[in-house]
């Protein structure tokens, strides 16, 4: 009894003043995914959010709980029968979606839940927010918890993938593996810290005595990150396939992370895999971050590559460097 992918969907910022916040992107992706699967939000037992860069960089509550409420996934106890929903965030860079799938696969396999969704999104925390966030929240949060960011390098995208149990044991996810290469930890860093600087007079007038400065998000991606990601992925794929009793030639479709730029090409060329066995995204997805694996999955579903494949290998890479691998049988 495996875990099957029912649907995948991505979302993009809507054209509006101030852009679209990360939570709204996740809401949109989740709702599109549910519609594609022919399900309602009430079907969801388990919701994991894997996005990193969120509205106002909030740390509490889990963004997943806000998404759960927004999309109406049993936000309050059902009136008759039915079930509740459990939601929380996973934070594991651009591998977070696969980590979320790994966790959700477990609760599906155990029989604790029947349907779950992994949602993700990233947006420049300074660019904009969901219209009802944070102003629908408590008290003065909207006035004082905004924080800055410098040179946000990622494009705003959301993604969602809906999973359920397959009655066919030969279908669905069969194997996961994760490896870290911390000698390359410095190649992608994202930190938020206080930087001294003048505070706007309008703020100083209202709240006298504030410390001059603001919290600023810094994201630093070093040279050679994509090439090192490809090396780490290559080092991980061989042992993984061997443990599954498979060879590179047995894999009908590779779904590599579309970013960092250059990773997918470097990985597939070094592995000697022809382009028609690699899921690609179009250039409009340039800069996608945690939603990258879902974008590549959605693309391969649209072209029919995914449905036609017997063995599919997800190859995701992220900061750490972390490599996440998963074998799937459509």
């Amino acid at each position, binding site marked *: 009894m495996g875990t099957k992918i029912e649907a995948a969907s991505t979302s993009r910022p809507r054209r509006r003043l101030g852009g679209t916040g990360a939570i709204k992107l996740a809401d949109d992706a989740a709702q599109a995914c549910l519609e594609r699967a022919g399900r309602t939000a009430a079907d969801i037992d388990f919701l994991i959010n894997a996005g990193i860069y969120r509205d106002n*960089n909030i740390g509490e*509550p889990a963004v997943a709980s806000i998404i759960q409420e927004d999309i109406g996934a049993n936000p309050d106890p059902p009136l008759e029968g039915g079930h509740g929903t459990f939601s929380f965030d996973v934070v594991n860079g651009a591998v977070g979606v696969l980590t979320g799938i790994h966790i959700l696969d*477990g609760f599906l396999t*155990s*029989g604790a*839940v029947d349907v779950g969704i992994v949602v993700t999104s990233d947006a420049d925390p300074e660019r904009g927010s969901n219209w009802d966030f*944070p102003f629908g929240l408590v008290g003065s949060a909207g006035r004082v918890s905004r924080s800055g960011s410098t040179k946000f390098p990622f494009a705003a995208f959301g993604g969602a993938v809906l999973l359920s149990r397959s009655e066919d044991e030969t279908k669905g996810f069969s194997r996961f593996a994760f490896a870290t290469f*911390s000698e390359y930890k410095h190649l992608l860093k994202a930190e938020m810290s206080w930087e001294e600087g003048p505070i706007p007079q309008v703020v100083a007038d209202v709240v006298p005595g504030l410390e001059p400065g603001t*919290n600023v998000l810094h994201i630093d991606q070093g040279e050679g990150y994509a090439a090192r990601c490809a090396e780490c992925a290559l080092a991980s794929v061989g042992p993984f396939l061997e443990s599954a009793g498979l060879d590179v030639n047995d894999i009908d479709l590779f779904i590599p992370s579309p970013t960092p730029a250059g990773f997918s090409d470097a990985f597939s060329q070094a592995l000697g895999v022809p382009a028609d066995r690699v899921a690609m995204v179009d250039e409009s997805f340039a800069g996608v971050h945690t939603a990258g694996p879902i974008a590549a999955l959605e693309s391969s579903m649209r072209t029919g590559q995914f449905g036609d494949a017997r063995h599919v290998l997800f190859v995701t890479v992220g900061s750490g460097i972390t490599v996440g691998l998963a074998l799937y049988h459509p």
Partner: protein
Amino acid sequence: MARERHAVQMDHGMILEAGVGTLADGSPAIPTRIESIGWKIPERILTTQELMESTRHNTHIQLERLTGIHQRHVCSEGEDSYTLAVGAARDCLEHSRYDPEDLEMLINCSISRYKGGLRHQWEAPLSLSIKDAIGAHRAINFDISNACAGMMTGVFILHDFIRRGVIKRGMAVSGECISNLGQNAAKQVRWVLSDQLASLTLGDAGTAVIVERAESETDHIAVAGFTTLSEHSRLCLGAPSKVGPGASMFTKARQIHQVAISESPLLLKEALDAAGYSFGDIDYIIPHQTSARAIERGAREIGERLGVQPKRVVVTVNEFGNTSSTTHFVALRKYLGEKRFNRGDTIMLISFASGLEVGVLIFPVEEILDRYGNED
């Protein structure tokens, strides 16, 4: 009438995994247990009197009388979320039969992820730094974030992986460096109804727990479970502060308490039923530690709803403050160290956290007592 309707509503409210039972394919689940617990408490103490004397405004708030919190431990120079987590992980390993290389999974569960001072690390995951520091090189690592329910969520995930036989053991760890929220609140709180009042109750602490495959028929987790009442997701917000380094938190504490007390009894009963226990069977209730008065009042109200008062309700908030995701394991580690449990006592951890998360973990203490020098 309302109560009957509620019973129907909450019929399947919790996502539960019992200690014994079967998986979806009909194969038996492997029992799991808490093998060891560790903590790292900063040495520096900040009393409530000292904190309230530091407020910018003359607040007239009797915080110690309102909450029962006399003091909290706070980080000094060189201490942060990372050092607290690493210290707790090492203490946990010192009381464990395992070496770091034996760990197959390491989950960092803290809200605050400060490393190198008040530098919040979004990438790479802090779990990787912790894994490297303690030498758990074989462990799959990732971070989760689930407000004050983080550690219990981590244990729930480990329980699931172990009971399916995917791994044999793993660690959940959290270092919460959150006293800076109190310092930021002290600049702004004006009166007792301030939405930053709860920030003044916070303290710093690190905790870690190893969950392993159980060999005993009795010494295993009876049930673990969670649900998210997300209708109330917007009652508490924590985010980087604009008034000073670190973060600020805004809470509708009274509403959260009311929701938790009104919604939770039947959810807790679901978990108790799945474990084959009644509320009266539980020897120690360890709720999330927010304020002594709220804990005592909440336990009494839940007891009234469930028809039996709890035997013992653990309160440590007076000494440590609210240490967020670590509170349950601070209490457990303190009681283990002070040899306050008897062999076979049944413990029930109850989580109420922003989201609104309701979580339960029920387990006995048997062999773990030996590792803390407890004698029968």
